[in-house]
């Protein structure tokens, strides 16, 4: 049953992915104007433009272009960047490493801080620490990423000069961007952990564990937390893919050469192949993330596993 369910989800994900590719492809091609003209400037003569257009296959009907794109994309060829003149796959490969490191740091921050705050809040429910942490996490959810990023940059890099303002020469350069990026997720994890932990603590088996003579710490960690973490874990899988694809602003503020920044550069350079590939990559990551979350849930929760 599990396998069949998984196969169904996989097929669904593939369909969505195809839809996404088609949507991106069509949207980028309804932009008025020939990209070759944009690329070559005002003074290009008509003959060269026509030759280039034919060379790049842009004179073909849209569906031919689409299938051609798909068939080379499957083989890892995403075309050549208009604005940078390099193969898109190579540009993205380098940038993806930076984004991955950034997202990992951000996730680490979000999960450690978020879970710790969530547990603490649940244990001290409705007391001062709870109020404080929950207020803080709401602030985290409402603070736009670019404000968090600029605030951190101003205070810790410019005023206190503890950390570099931008760049990724050393790992310390990743700290501020990671905190800025993970801030939001930390708030969400904290709230989720608190809610599910409070719900779990009211279950009968917690009373049983207490009656058995387990200490309060043992009950909290071994019995309550283990069961409460399920929804949190699923959320984290979804979040991680969100972090990977949501680094556009953080990377721009801190000048990190990642996929997000590449995407902004692609937009300002009207670079269709690059924009197409970066947005496709980001969306794929998100689809994979939610697929992973589903699998994780059914593996970790025996009840779902049985129901199939």
């Amino acid at each position, binding site marked *: 049953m599990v396998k069949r369910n998984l196969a169904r989800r996989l097929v669904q994900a593939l369909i*969505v992915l195809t839809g996404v590719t088609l949507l991106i492809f069509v949207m980028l091609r309804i*932009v008025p104007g020939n990209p070759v003209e944009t690329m070559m400037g005002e003074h290009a003569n008509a003959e060269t433009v026509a030759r280039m257009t034919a060379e790049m296959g842009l004179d073909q009907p849209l569906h031919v272009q689409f299938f051609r794109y798909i068939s080379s994309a499957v083989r890892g060829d995403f075309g050549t960047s208009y604005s940078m003149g390099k193969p898109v796959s190579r540009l993205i490969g380098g940038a993806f490493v930076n984004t991955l490191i950034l997202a990992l740091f951000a996730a680490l921050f979000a999960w450690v801080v978020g879970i710790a705050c969530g547990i603490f809040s649940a244990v001290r429910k409705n007391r001062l620490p709870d109020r404080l942490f929950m207020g803080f996490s709401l602030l985290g959810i409402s603070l*736009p990423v670019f404000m968090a990023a600029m605030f951190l940059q101003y205070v810790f890099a410019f005023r206190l000069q503890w950390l570099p303002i931008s760049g990724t020469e050393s790992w310390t350069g990743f700290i501020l961007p990671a905190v800025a990026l993970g801030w939001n997720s930390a708030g969400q994890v904290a709230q989720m952990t608190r809610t599910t932990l409070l719900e779990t603590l009211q279950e009968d088996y917690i009373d049983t564990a207490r009656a058995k003579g387990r200490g309060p710490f043992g009950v909290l960690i071994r019995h309550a937390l283990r069961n409460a973490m399920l929804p949190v874990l699923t959320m984290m899988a979804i979040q991680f893919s969100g972090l990977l694809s949501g680094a556009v602003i953080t990377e721009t503020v801190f000048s990190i050469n990642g996929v997000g920044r590449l995407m*902004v550069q692609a937009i300002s350079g009207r670079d269709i192949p690059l924009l197409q590939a970066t947005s496709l990559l980001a969306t794929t990551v998100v689809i994979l993330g939610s697929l992973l979350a589903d699998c994780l849930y059914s593996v970790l929760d025996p009840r779902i596993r049985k129901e199939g």
Partner: protein
Amino acid sequence: MLRTKRKRAEQAADLLLQSQIGEEERFRDLMRRMVRENKTAAASFVLIVLMVLAAALGPLLTPYGENEMDLLHRLAAPSAEHLLGTDEGGRDVLTRLLYGARVSLLIGVAPALLSLILGAALGVAAGYRGGLTDAVIMRVADVTLAFPSMLLAMVIMYALGGGILNVFLTLTLVNWANVARVVRAQTLKLKNCEFVEAARIIGVSRGRIMRRHILPNCLPTLLVLFTLNIPASILTESSLSFLGLGIQPPNASWGLMINTGRQYLYSAPWLCFAPGAAIMLIVLAFNFLGNGLLDVLDPRMKKQ
């Protein structure tokens, strides 16, 4: 967060259906209870009203004009004359904040409303008609939801170009799928309710059943979604404008003010932090209000 909120909105709507609330009078009672019990939500509501008033009465509150330059006092720090300082053209930041509030608030409300209408119409149609209509609408919704919203907004803005109207359109296209999904789920439940069946039996037309019997019962959920979509729209717009892809000068929104103020982050930090604080306040207020509405609609949450 949005995921959990959507789930909670659905649960709340379920409970409403079960307890047969949803008539207008009971709904008004609920609102009253929210104001009485949830002080944060009530305070947020007051704050939102104040901000709307300030945006509407902007010109009366400040002695300066929106684009009044004063090159002798460029980048002046906050003082008694300029409460929030001046920008690179010597324009009063507080004044520009008040004028920018018009754009930012409008961008919060208009696309949220548009996506609500579009999403509700498509969601009801998908849920009630089923079959091919359902399949087509929901697959398109799936594809839309698969995009991270910021990314989708960036791609659409690229295709359409900058400007207020395009931002409206983009945010509507980004947010409708969420609404459609929730409304569809509700419609599926309502479809088999006795009163809908009764209407069907006495020969009420399909369109009329959708309009008069199903949609009104989705209203509480729609209200919550609307309240939560507003801050989401404001955040997306400010992020787009921050990247230079959203509102274009001479229009001013808070996001755009931060975009231009960024170059002066170290010499004149108020250029970024004043509009940033404004965005945070309004987003926080709408989130509190949305959560307050949810709590009132979902009685189980009150116990905690």
